[in-house]
């Protein structure tokens, strides 16, 4: 029964996505185009593509799922369907799990297609495992979904929900270490970046790309990413109120 409600929700979210093939196409095609652009832009310095290609591949799903989930959940709130669900025999955890399953599957599709392109056609090379890169991409997608779910509670219109992307995602992107190594940042920026989950997601990806070292720091990275998913989901669940004003 528990699994039933989560599975039913996953099927329902999947059906909604299927009715919107253009969104699915954008989610899959846009990262492919950007990876290709990156490769071509740095045709003269191939080491740049080798350096940022894998982390970027792993971080795209975070951004896509953040936006898609925050808008989907906002619709659920404004259309009244969330209120209906809250009067029905559905546990919040099943609703969240249903969303998680559906978007993680979409992330698997996205990560697989982008990986095939980057590792196959574009000649991206990682010292570590390509599967690990894809697995981290899916974990990041679930993290993006969980954060999107949470922030949707603070948006009242779809415009606001979309603006949360630059507000919540861009600063993490700038500070995660991809553009400037964290060692080279001012102390206060490094301190801030230590509190941002994407910093750990990036570090894990960079380590896989470099083929290690898989020491304590790598374990911390993975634990922080998984822990952030749990925290964001708990916060998201707290915003699903059975009673509202």
């Amino acid at each position, binding site marked *: 029964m528990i699994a*039933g409600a989560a599975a039913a929700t996953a*099927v329902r979210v999947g059906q909604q996505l299927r*009715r919107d093939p253009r969104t699915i196409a954008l989610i899959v095609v846009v990262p492919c185009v950007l990876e290709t652009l990156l490769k071509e832009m740095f045709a003269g310095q191939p080491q740049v593509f080798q350096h940022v290609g894998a982390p970027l591949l792993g971080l795209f799903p975070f951004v896509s799922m953040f936006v898609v989930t925050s808008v989907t959940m906002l619709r659920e709130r404004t*259309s*009244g369907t969330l*209120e*209906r669900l809250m009067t029905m*025999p559905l546990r919040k955890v099943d609703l969240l799990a249903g969303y998680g399953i559906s978007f993680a599957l979409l992330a698997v599709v996205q990560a697989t297609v982008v990986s095939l392109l980057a590792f196959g056609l574009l000649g991206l090379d990682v010292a570590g495992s390509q599967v690990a890169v894809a697995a981290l991409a899916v974990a990041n997608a679930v993290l993006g979904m969980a954060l999107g779910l949470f922030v949707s509670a603070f948006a009242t219109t779809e415009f606001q929900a979309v603006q949360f992307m630059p507000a919540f995602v861009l600063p993490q992107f700038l500070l995660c270490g991809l553009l400037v190594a964290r060692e080279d940042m001012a102390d206060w920026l490094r301190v801030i970046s230590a509190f941002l989950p994407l910093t750990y997601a990036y570090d894990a990806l960079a380590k896989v790309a470099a083929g290690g070292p898989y020491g304590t720091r790598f374990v911390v990275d993975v634990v922080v990413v998984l822990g952030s998913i749990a925290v964001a989901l708990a916060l998201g669940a707290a915003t699903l109120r*059975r009673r509202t004003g």
Partner: protein
Amino acid sequence: MLDGLSLEVPSGAVTGLVGPSGGGKSTLMRAIVGVQVVAGGRIDVLGEPAGSAALRRRVGYMTQSLSVYSDLSVRENLRYFARLYGVGQDRVESAIGTVALDDFGNRVLNRLSGGQKARVSLAAALLGEPEVLVLDEPTVGLDPLLRRDLWNLFHRLAESGTTLIVSSHVMDEAERCDGLLILRDGKLIATGSPDELRARTGAHGLDDVFLRLVETEGP
């Protein structure tokens, strides 16, 4: 919003909640199904506190907003809600028939009229065969023929033991209720059957009944 309200709703009957918009009808209904934050007071439904987990299978609710997925088909919507209630797919088909949407089962809601979407929402509330049905303006935007059919359905459900609480701001619908609760500015200004209220106020139509009640109560 709602102040000093005390009332009981008889089971196996259609109780109408009428009054001007902004009078507290929806707030009262939301409180009964347990989605409204209440500052104080106590609401029991079927002997349990409103909104308790045990009631979620026993109380059906149709909100004023459509509260169905407009990017899914009629059948996809109802199948999802049926799975959450843990009822069979046969109920989906019978609910579609009940609200006369047999020809539109596979139509995506975006491509249905407002009245048709409202019927999907009603069908979703009927799926769990609840003991108490709380329907917030279920017949808005429906043609007279369909309205009559739905009111007949409400009475059939009441005869089989379902308790219905139906809000409306149309007085000819109030006429079809077994009992009425008239709400204005968050206060219950009158209760009784349509006949009792007519006798008490000496008015003929329920519109006049309502006007007299409002005038004697004062602002």
